[in-house]
């Protein structure tokens, strides 16, 4: 792998991680940080196109950190070009918010039908109540609720993931309002203190990679993926 040593660092991330990245990214580490509209999540096929354009827009070979997971294959097929890509090896942002792949799998296996809320997701993303409110003017209340039922009737649980108690308290009222709406499908409400451990490790990795590239190589097949120049992101790289 050609050495990304001394490469300028660029962060391209989903808006959902904006808060945690702003808090953890040391000043001056990244030459540029770009937050992308969460709405790209709705159409993964468009997500890769938009991300590719953004990656390609950088002239100088860079270490590009993607604040994403596989995200419904939204990252699949992304080409590194002249850059080196660094991506957390997760399905989506939930593992990043919970702090590890294992925590996500543990939650997933205990109740597969879980809808996750977080600060970032509440501020810039969507949730069932917001969706319903968007559907009503378009389809009328009855049809809107029918659409909601089709999508959420098998869900069992709503979880608010917060990184600290202050966030939990700030976002609890909104989460509980959504939870009341979701009671319609028998969903129960729970809270989890997440962890910024995963994002912290990502940033530490970038900081060490700037000094010593050997560290990057050690991470391949672990919790992070490194795509060397000329490489491409493949779906199976995320499967573990």
């Amino acid at each position, binding site marked *: 792998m050609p050495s990304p040593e001394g490469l300028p660092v660029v962060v391209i991330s989903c808006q959902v991680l904006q808060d945690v990245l702003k808090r953890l990214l040391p000043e001056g580490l990244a030459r540029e940080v770009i937050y992308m509209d969460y709405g790209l999540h*709705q*159409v*993964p*096929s*468009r997500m890769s196109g938009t991300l590719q354009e953004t990656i390609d827009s950088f002239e100088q070979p860079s270490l590009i950190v993607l604040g994403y997971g*596989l995200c*419904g*294959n939204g990252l699949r097929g992304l080409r590194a070009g002249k850059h080196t890509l660094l991506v957390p090896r997760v*399905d*989506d942002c939930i593992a990043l918010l919970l702090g590890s792949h294992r925590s996500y799998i543990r939650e*997933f*296996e205990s109740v*597969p*039908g879980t809808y996750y809320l977080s600060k970032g997701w509440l501020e810039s993303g969507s949730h069932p109540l917001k969706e319903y409110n968007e*559907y009503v003017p*378009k*389809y009328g209340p009855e*049809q809107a609720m*029918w*659409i909601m039922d*089709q*999508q959420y009737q*098998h*869900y069992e649980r709503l979880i608010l993931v917060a990184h600290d108690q202050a966030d939990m308290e700030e976002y609890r009222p909104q989460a509980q309002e959504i939870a009341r709406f979701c009671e319609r499908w028998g969903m129960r409400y729970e809270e989890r203190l997440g962890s910024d451990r995963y994002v912290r490790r990502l940033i530490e990795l970038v900081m060490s990679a700037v000094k010593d590239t050997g560290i990057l190589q050690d991470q391949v097949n672990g919790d992070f993926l490194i795509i060397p120049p000329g490489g491409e992101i493949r*779906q*199976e790289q*995320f*499967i573990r």
Partner: protein
Amino acid sequence: MSRVYERLSTAILEGDAEKAPKLVERGLEQGLVPKDILDNGLVPGMNEVGVRFKAGDMFVPEVLMSADAMQASLKVLRPELVASGAKLIGKIVMGTVKGDLHDIGKNLVGMMCEGAGFEVIDLGFNVDPEKFIDAIKEHQPDIVGMSALLTTTMRAMALTIRAIQEAGLRDQVKIMIGGAPVDAEFAERIGADGYGSNGPAGSDLAKKFVGAA
């Protein structure tokens, strides 16, 4: 070709669950062949839904409404299809795999397959490999269909295929898969026989499997 076909396709595309079955009735009154109403009116409408959804020009609510219009149309058309001598062309067992509770896509494929003349045994969602195996033993289907919406759960398809293999049942069924995160390449990698990108594509594949395409 009758104007009814075109208007029917449009009604399906627009998700008009009132107009679509009425157009089916009108077509039948005009003496159109039930199978032609399906193949030239309803199916092209759903095909277009699939194309637009994939391109991001249609979203889940619109797809649901189109499916509802399709369902309402099939309700009117199915007795006529049967009366006109359309035979069952095969049997399919299908379900959303373990860990996944999203069934909109699977239901769509099921509906299209039923429309095409299959008997569909729907195992629901979050279906264990063992449940697939039991259903294969009990119903002796020609085809097993599996669906998943999440990249987290698509690997359960591979596990299910392995379990079917270990149960010694792999050779007696064709396996088709579908769902947002998967594709033909994934299907091949996990040893499925085929991949369908949407409802109509799923039923086309099923027809091919039983030699009815």
